[in-house]
């Protein structure tokens, strides 16, 4: 909690039915902790600041010589960091979609929909609901994440990821876009 003097507004204490219980819970659990924290803030004064670490970018694995193990090691470390960061980004997009659905579904009887697979909101392809855009963003990002990091195992390396991309490009050159099936190995019809 930041060092501020404005009072925390206890949520739901204005509720007609549950206001009393909320106030009781607040007085038992939250109010003593807030009082204690204010006492400590008076003793401490201005708190110190801490920051999140920022890593400088280093050359990626495709810019390293084969024998330069230092460059490869650093590229690998950067790759692992990037994987964590991008995983967190996917999590944020997923949370956004979940929050959008939760906010839009309504409450009470308006949230009651027949049991079906999927969200309580209409997010089928072609829907104009605002959560559909959020879902599309999440699904696109998820697909890209799988293209980049998928099926490499629990401890992937930058070399594996790079070669996966190379193999995918070669496959696409030979068979067309991914998802359109493989071409069989027929003798060249142009020889006729």
């Amino acid at each position, binding site marked *: 909690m930041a060092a501020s003097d404005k009072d925390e507004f206890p949520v739901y204490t204005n509720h007609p039915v549950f206001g009393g219980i909320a106030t009781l819970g607040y007085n038992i659990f939250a109010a003593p902790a807030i009082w204690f924290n204010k006492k400590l803030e008076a003793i401490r004064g201005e708190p110190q600041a801490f920051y999140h670490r920022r890593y400088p970018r280093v050359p990626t694995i495709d810019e390293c010589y084969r024998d330069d*193990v230092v460059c490869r090691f650093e590229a690998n470390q950067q790759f692992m960091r990037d994987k964590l960061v991008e995983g967190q980004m996917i999590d944020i997009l997923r949370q956004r979609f979940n929050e959008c659905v939760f906010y839009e579904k309504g409450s009470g009887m308006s949230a009651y929909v027949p049991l079906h697979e999927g969200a309580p909101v209409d997010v089928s392809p072609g829907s104009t609901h605002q959560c559909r855009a959020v879902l599309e963003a999440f699904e696109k990002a998820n697909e890209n994440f799988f293209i980049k990091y998928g099926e490499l195992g629990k401890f992937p390396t930058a070399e594996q990821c790079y070669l996966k991309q190379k193999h995918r490009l070669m496959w696409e050159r030979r068979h067309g876009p991914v998802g359109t099936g493989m071409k069989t190995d027929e003798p060249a019809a142009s020889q006729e």
Partner: protein
Amino acid sequence: MAILSRLLNVAKTTVNPVRSMGGIGGQVQNRPSRWNYDIFKDHIHFYVMLGVVPLGLAVLFANIYEGPAVLKPIPEGYVPQEHEYYRSPVTRWFVKYVYPSQQQSYEQHLCQVWEEQKVTNMYQLMREVKRVQKIHQDYKGWYVREVDHASYLRASMKNHSIYEDTVGYVLGDEEVPKEKAENVFRY
């Protein structure tokens, strides 16, 4: 602490090694050993009085008087010191005065990787040379010394003739096998 608890037990037992004298002066108590119990209490005493209490008080006062740090964005053009990346005051103190920084340990590891790569390259080179030499086995390696065998043979024959003049002809010298006489000089 250990001494006190043990002295208490000693005070309760009396040692009568030779004779009981009718029980006068005390008797050896016939009872099981109290050693495990006493040593357990000693250990608890040690770890609590010297570990839990001082360190707990230090952490408590650090959190009361200094408190945890709050997360802020890095100001423009400012490079935070290593201890400004952590929240707890105890961790910050350790990072500031005890631990090496993350950049230092990272670059030390890079140096170690580089050195190991040099060693690995040397071993790989040696193995490759041996492999190629093994194909025809007709290449003079770095260890071959070009020796003038004939001059050394002549010198050894001359030494042998001097030896024969000194010692005389020894029966059995003629049984030297032919290969040995023409043998390469062994340095």
